[in-house]
């Protein structure tokens, strides 16, 4: 099944938690925040929140700007 991670189609084999997704994609886990389908997933819920089919996942961090 395919989800969108930061706008890119990403195949995953089965529903996984946010925590596993970050691990699997080797994304940083500090100083980042995650939204799934337009809602923030607090860090404390990463291990309990599943990312389902066609989910829109955003993983953001601080960059220069402003």
């Amino acid at each position, binding site marked *: 099944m395919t989800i969108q991670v*930061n*706008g890119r189609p990403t195949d995953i084999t089965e529903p996984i938690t946010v925590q596993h997704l970050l691990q699997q994609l*080797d*994304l*940083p886990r500090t*100083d*980042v*925040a*995650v*939204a799934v389908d*337009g*809602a*923030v997933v*607090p*860090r404390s819920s990463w291990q309990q929140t599943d990312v389902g089919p066609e989910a829109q996942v*955003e*993983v*953001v*961090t*601080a*960059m*220069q*700007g*402003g």
Partner: protein
Amino acid sequence: MQTTDPLKVAGDELESRLLLGTGGVPSLGTLADCIRASGTSLVTVSMRRVRPDAPGSPLQTVRDAGVRVLPNTAGCFSARDAVLTAQLSREALGTSWVKLEVIADDQTLLPDVVETLAAAEQLVADGFDVFPYTTDDLGVARRLADLGCAAVMPLGSPIGSGLGISNPRAIAAICESVDVPVVLDAGIGTASDAALAMELGCDAVLAATAITRAEAPARMATAIAAAVEAGWLARAAGRIPRRESALASSPFEGLLGS
């Protein structure tokens, strides 16, 4: 040199009245230099998608310098996007402070005050300390303050333009009329612009492009920091009135042959 009083805002005290924007800084080393040279207590960052290939994050640099971070919602065109971005920034960075930016289009980068007001209302209700970028419209600034924003941040002129303060009377009117701190945002081109902002009554100045894209960024950071202090002191010192005619500074009594 006598220094300014700290800026009390959102329950904190900032030693420096110069906020530093990090956009356009050529390297993290330069950023570190600019933070040091500016003496700033508060540095903005934007929230963007994680890129595996991204160069280093400015966060570590900001932390090493021991200053606060102020995430912004730059790039948002709607209250909805801005609120989500703010929530993500709080989650990622562990701060309830957010510089709220909702712009009307990607050419002028001017604020969309309607969306800004809507977002400010939601964010205040959600417990944020909101620092909204806005126009120099007095009524809107007052509404933002009345909504419970921590400060208001009217623009001097468009972002990155370096045109200084296009309408000084409008900025002065906001400073007189609003109870929360006023931070001049956008348009600073050089030191005298920053001094003028403080003389008009602003409580602080944010400079980004003016510093980060100057030929010598750290030196410009020092310059603008000095100008902020100069302007703050000058306002406190009570300037002479403007006079349409001259006023002798040397006495006319006791002249030779008089």
